[in-house]
């Protein structure tokens, strides 16, 4: 890695577009919510929402679907951000869905609550009658996402129908929906991973500490570094060891792999991404289940 790698400037037109989308959501829907995971993409969304409605407050709540398997650093950061911005926070727990018998905990070595959170999310949408949920998905992440609209209509059951998407032309956004339907909105659709990082850098946005290098107990599995935790089912051969790592993407502790890295500031993170041979979602264990894992989950209501 060369120190002289130039870090590209953030294309400001992307921010203009995203702020425009945020304002369309607030104007066209009665009860929007911003889906907050504590990852860098949803943190970026919070910043955009702040900017879109300044000097007013963010006119919708943040909704966090808590799997119970989060990195503690993420939760700490979430609570700090809410205090800092004065945003309203709603938390709904996957554990409650499990206790109510609505979903069943997965078993085995690869057990994760990633798929289960869809049910908790759909229940929360129904409970609060949310008609629009803003998410941080980007089209460059994955090929099913590459085909999704900015205003993506979901049916009564929260499902995405990729073959029946509304045409989306120019910057006109059509948020008209029928009763029971809702819309998933993706304001940073056109951002790449690099755009998110250059934005974080230029805006000086705070992010959870796990994005920076740190010592952590990990195990090796399938050629990836998995964070060791009480939530991960390990075999006898999988002996935890200490490693200097950071996280490039942040999901659950059971489905996010770490990368060996000493990057302790944003510039180094960006240089690392610029020279990376592996894509961001290469570190998402949940996507490796099949070639169409993401599309399948989206059709069932995942965001």
């Amino acid at each position, binding site marked *: 890695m060369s120190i002289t790698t130039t870090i590209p400037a953030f294309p400001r037109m992307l921010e*203009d577009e995203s702020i425009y989308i945020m304002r369309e959501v607030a104007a066209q829907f009665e009860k929007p919510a911003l889906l907050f995971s504590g990852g860098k993409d949803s943190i970026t969304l919070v910043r955009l929402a702040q900017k879109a409605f300044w000097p007013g407050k963010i006119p919708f709540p943040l909704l966090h679907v808590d799997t119970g398997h989060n990195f503690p650093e993420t939760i700490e950061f979430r609570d700090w951000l809410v205090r800092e911005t004065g945003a309203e926070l709603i938390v709904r727990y996957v554990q409650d869905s499990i206790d109510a018998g609505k979903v069943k905990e997965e078993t085995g070595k690869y057990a994760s609550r990633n798929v289960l959170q869809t049910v908790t999310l759909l229940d929360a949408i129904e409970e609060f009658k949310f008609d629009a949920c803003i998410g941080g998905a980007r089209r460059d992440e994955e*090929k099913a996402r590459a085909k999704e609209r900015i205003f993506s209509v979901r049916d009564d059951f929260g499902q995405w129908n990729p073959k029946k998407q509304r045409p989306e*032309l120019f910057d006109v956004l059509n948020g008209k929906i029928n009763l029971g339907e809702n819309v998933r909105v993706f304001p940073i659709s056109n951002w790449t991973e690099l755009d998110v990082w250059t934005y974080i850098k230029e805006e000086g946005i705070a992010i959870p500490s796990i994005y920076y290098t740190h010592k952590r107990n990990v195990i090796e599995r399938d050629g990836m570094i998995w964070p060791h935790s009480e939530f991960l089912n390990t075999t006898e051969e999988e002996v935890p060891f200490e490693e200097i790592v950071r996280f490039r993407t942040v999901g659950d502790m059971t489905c996010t792999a770490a990368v060996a890295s000493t990057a302790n500031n944003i510039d180094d993170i960006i240089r690392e991404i610029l020279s990376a041979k592996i894509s961001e979602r290469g570190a998402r264990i949940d996507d490796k289940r099949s070639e169409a894992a993401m599309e399948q989950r989206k059709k069932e209501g995942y965001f």
Partner: protein
Amino acid sequence: MDIVRIATAGSVDDGKSTLIGRLLYETNSITQDKLEAIERASKRRGVDYTDLSLLTDGLIAEREQGITIDVAHIYFSTPKRKYIIADTPGHFEYTRNMITGASNAQVAIILIDARNGIVEQTHRHFYITQLLRIPYVIVCINKMDLVNYTEQQFEVVKEQFQELFSKANYKDQHIQFIPASSLYGDNIAVRSKQMPWFEGPSILEFLENIEWHSQENQLPARFPVQYVIRPRSEQWHDFRGFAGKLSSGVFRKGDVVVAMPSLQESTIAGIHRFEEEIEEAESGDSVVVTLSSEIDLSRGDMLVKKEQQPEPLKEISAQVCWLDHTPLKAGKNYLLQHGSNRVKAKVTNLFSSINVLDYQTIDGVEEIGLNEIGYISVKTARPVIADSYASNRNNGTFILIDEGSNSTVGVGFIS
């Protein structure tokens, strides 16, 4: 850093996916794991080359059937620019998809197989670039390797295309012909050694050098109000800001402005970008504008400069492209959305449809079906503050929404 949006169009098997793959590959925009995933998938499908179309065919149905259904968005960048490609399918509901994908594009790449020359699809693709008034068109005459890289074949196809262009309305469109082989990378990112007779740029060189967005600042200022910000907090007790994205022109502090349709006059007191107060907003900027006096202005209205007022429209003539399986019929009501302004509308007249192959209009049609283009007039319940599409691309279109399904069923280009 600026952004250039590209739409790609081509018919089946003319190497469009390979071209996109090449651009990504040569700008180091494909990561190792993605490339390996494509190689694995190619093998599973029993093809003996790396099928770069698998990079863009994202849906299960597309991979099963080996076709592209929907517009895919692909990203790559150079140190100078960020590029967004809207890759539209060549054969499946081509018009609907291509218009959707190309609506924001500054550049269209039309692919032509050098062996076949212009085919029916080329007429359709070119017509859409004309309808959308896409400022730059790259006519990529591809598969030159299969015609021994001869200048003669390139000239034949080029002449065919120029004949097509001679019938077109939008003459300011910049057409760049480039002979290429996407399979071997000739004239894609770097200039071909096989075709020394060609003195023009490679596709990437051309993309790197186009200039476009300065032109939008020269147009009359149009500021559609999206949202009114009234914090009602102690600190911002009397703040009343109008949030929107300036769709064309420039706004400066102190400009005398008129709210449309109320026609009330005021002066720009401040322009805000978050906490920062700026002197001037340019086309494309998302800002908050404050005024020196209280006037009647809310979402759906437009703020313009006093000396640049457009005529409020209640009867709109437009060219329309239909995007839905249920045809457009005269007398039917729709919702018309122009920017942030959504109004009830009735299609009062349906004049003719257009044959995109020979540009002939067909009069006395009863309806306009999926993927067809026609001329209509629409009456709206409230005035629409628009310009003609030819004079202002960003303020000259609307969509039609079906009141039953709520789906977007048509797109209009104001005459």
